């Protein structure tokens, strides 16, 4: 760096520090933006898989009329099945304050200690729950403002209101947070279910296939054979659910949201690239004469080119030094938000090395790529072209045509014609400026449109609902009776009765 040419480089950087700072900030912001969402995506995707696969998820849930130990043993020993377990899901309601109820979904686990299909992880308090107590998903307690040891009032379809003690919490990463679904998730033994007024008989068989457990076709084939066998054994198969194998139930939503953000980040990157190109172009216009002088005193094109390329690399490194750590930190923060939204436990917020590499390469290569053409054009210019002032130029004829055309516009004054001539004098610069403005405008409009689209979708969804309150009964009731009751309730304008019945598609392959 003792060489005068490198001193010139550093002092040029200093003398144009405003322009350079703006360029570094533009690139750093785009790297920050891409870094945030790329690192969030990689962390969230990895941790989501880790959380979900850590539960040893079932390949299929088969709802039968009954599931007993003998059946579980027989299914476990079948070819193509690696594991089988019994469970039940029972809906109900919890009284969260006097006469205020919230839906409850109870997962019945015959043996918490030995359960190893679609498991839950102990979080706090007792595990397994003692008889006549309940474990709740960890997000339930803050939602209901309860603590371990408190009691919760639960009523199942066939039972009466019963208080049951919360003996601990678990983490069930396959479920959305309780606050999001406004549902109480509880985990109980069959004996506790019986205490709540339901039968002890379990009715769902969880199975994991042994061959190609992440191939939906292979799972369907194995489960179809199993269903035929179950029917042959006299069981009634009500429904078979095959979740996307190895994929968290909310993985596609997360991917969609982060991909949307990433697209915006890359748009920001494109914008910063155009901005950088505009600035580099402006800088080189100022440097043209100096390039000519350097060539006149013996500089080769390669020497001058490398000088400006190093300048751009230095700017890229500066932008990366700012953008990469901030982007990674923001990505980690954003992953925390995703984890909260999707009820995930972040075991590690490590960002893969390739993300760092991609971001650093982006920070250096993108300004280099956009600068390469103007730098090559500027440094390949001959000494005469940079120094002469004869008014003789290669595009003299094109300029004359343009100027002639402009001169014929009678109703413009000379100042305006001068401004127009200057605007069109350097077409490359004009195109860059227009690209910058149009890209920025397009990006802004895209953002506004996406926001407006989402808002319109939500408004439409709210408008299509056409009601303010939904009341669900735990047993069928007479429509007339309800209508006559509601008619006497002040403020009720209109009511409509609906009935919901779960159904399943009956396929030829028994699925």
């Amino acid at each position, binding site marked *: 760096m*003792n*060489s*005068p*040419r490198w*001193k*010139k480089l550093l*002092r*040029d950087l*200093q*003398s144009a520090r405003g322009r350079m700072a703006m360029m570094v900030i533009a690139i750093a912001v785009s790297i920050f933006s891409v870094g945030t969402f790329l690192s969030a995506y990689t962390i969230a995707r990895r941790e989501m898989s880790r959380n979900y696969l850590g539960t040893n998820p079932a390949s299929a849930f088969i709802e039968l009329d009954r599931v007993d130990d003998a059946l579980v043993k027989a299914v476990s020993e079948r070819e193509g099945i690696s594991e089988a377990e019994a469970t039940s899901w029972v809906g109900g309601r919890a009284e969260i304050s006097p006469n205020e109820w919230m839906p409850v979904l109870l997962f019945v686990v015959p043996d918490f200690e030995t359960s190893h299909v679609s498991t839950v992880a102990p979080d706090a308090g007792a595990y397994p729950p003692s008889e006549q107590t309940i474990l709740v998903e960890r997000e339930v307690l803050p939602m209901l403002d309860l603590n371990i040891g408190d009691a919760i009032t639960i009523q199942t379809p066939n039972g009466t209101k019963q208080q049951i003690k919360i003996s601990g919490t678990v983490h069930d990463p396959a479920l959305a947070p309780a606050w999001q679904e406004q549902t109480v998730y509880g985990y109980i033994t069959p004996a506790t279910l019986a205490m709540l007024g339901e039968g002890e008989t379990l009715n769902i068989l969880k199975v994991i296939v042994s061959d190609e457990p992440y191939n939906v076709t292979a799972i369907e084939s194995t489960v179809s054979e199993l269903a035929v066998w179950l029917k042959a054994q006299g069981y009634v198969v009500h429904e078979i659910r095959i979740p996307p194998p190895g994929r968290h139930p909310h993985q596609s939503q997360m991917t969609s949201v982060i991909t949307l953000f990433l697209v915006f980040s890359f748009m920001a990157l494109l914008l910063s690239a155009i901005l950088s190109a505009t600035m580099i172009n402006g800088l080189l216009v100022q440097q043209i*004469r*100096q390039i000519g*002088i*350097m*060539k*006149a*005193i*013996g*500089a*080769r*094109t*390669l*020497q001058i080119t490398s000088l400006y390329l190093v300048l751009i690399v230095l700017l890229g490194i500066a932008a990366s030094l700012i953008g990469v750590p901030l982007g990674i930190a923001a990505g980690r923060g954003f992953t925390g938000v995703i984890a909260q939204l999707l009820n995930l436990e972040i075991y590690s917020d490590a960002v893969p090395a390739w993300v760092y590499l991609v971001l650093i390469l982006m920070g250096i290569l993108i300004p280099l790529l956009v600068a390469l053409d103007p730098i090559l054009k500027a440094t390949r210019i*001959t*000494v*005469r072209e940079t*120094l*002469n002032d004869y008014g*003789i130029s*290669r595009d*003299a*004829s094109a300029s*004359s045509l343009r100027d002639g055309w402009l001169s014929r516009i009678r109703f413009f004054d000379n100042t305006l014609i001068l401004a127009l001539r200057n605007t069109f004098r350097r077409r490359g610069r004009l195109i860059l400026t227009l690209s910058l403005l149009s890209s920025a405008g397009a990006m802004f409009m895209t953002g506004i449109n996406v926001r407006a689209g989402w808002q319109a979708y939500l408004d439409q969804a709210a408008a299509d609902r056409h009601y303010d309150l939904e009341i669900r009964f735990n047993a069928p009731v007479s429509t007339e009776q309800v209508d006559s009751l509601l008619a006497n309730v002040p403020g009720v304008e209109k009511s409509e009765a609906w009935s919901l019945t779960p159904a399943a598609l009956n396929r030829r392959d028994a699925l």
Partner: protein
Amino acid sequence: METRLASQKHVMAMPVVERPLIELRKVSKAYNVAAGKFLALKEVDMQADAGEFVAVVGKSGSGKSTLINMITGIDTPTSGEVFVAGTAVHAMDQEQLAVWRGRNVGVVFQFFQLLPTLTVAENIVLPMDFCNTFPVNERRERAISLLEKVRIAEQADKLPADLSGGQQQRAAIARSLANNPPLIVADEPTGNLDSATSDAVMQLFANLAAEGKTVLMVTHERDLSRFFTRSIALADGSIVNGREK
């Protein structure tokens, strides 16, 4: 100092040749302009020997600057041949020309053209840096000795903007000598200076010619003729006289 430096193998030595240092044979230069083809030089023949201080005079547009651009390799002839110190300048590409020019021609411009972000001394070291002449640790010492020669050594560490016009032109002359070239070409170097400063600058060039360097200078100023050993007058792209003093 000059003798010691010139003896180093990486510095192009003054050629010992019988032929003139500068030789132009039927050099023409045409430019394409909106009105058609413009002939800036018309089959010009010219010679200059080592130690000559040659003035190139003529009206604006007569082809003076084009002529010296042919000699420095800043521009290439449309036809004809240019030889400088035995080198066929017309046959070289831009990259070869840059290296050749850096080592063999010192160029002095009317508006000095020092790089504004480098100090005066750094401006003088720059041609040595680009052409890789002289050992790195000797370059500043050489720059200072050249500044002493043009009598502005005390300005070595100032930026060009802190110098007067005359001092800047002296610095530019020192820069032109950085690689010890046999030929100095100056395009109206006194055009921007007052008469006293012009005289001082001209005396510097005359001294250089007296030391054996060939100095070729474009000028409009007739009252400087006393410094030249010869003048070449151009009109409409042709040499109209080559007058010995």
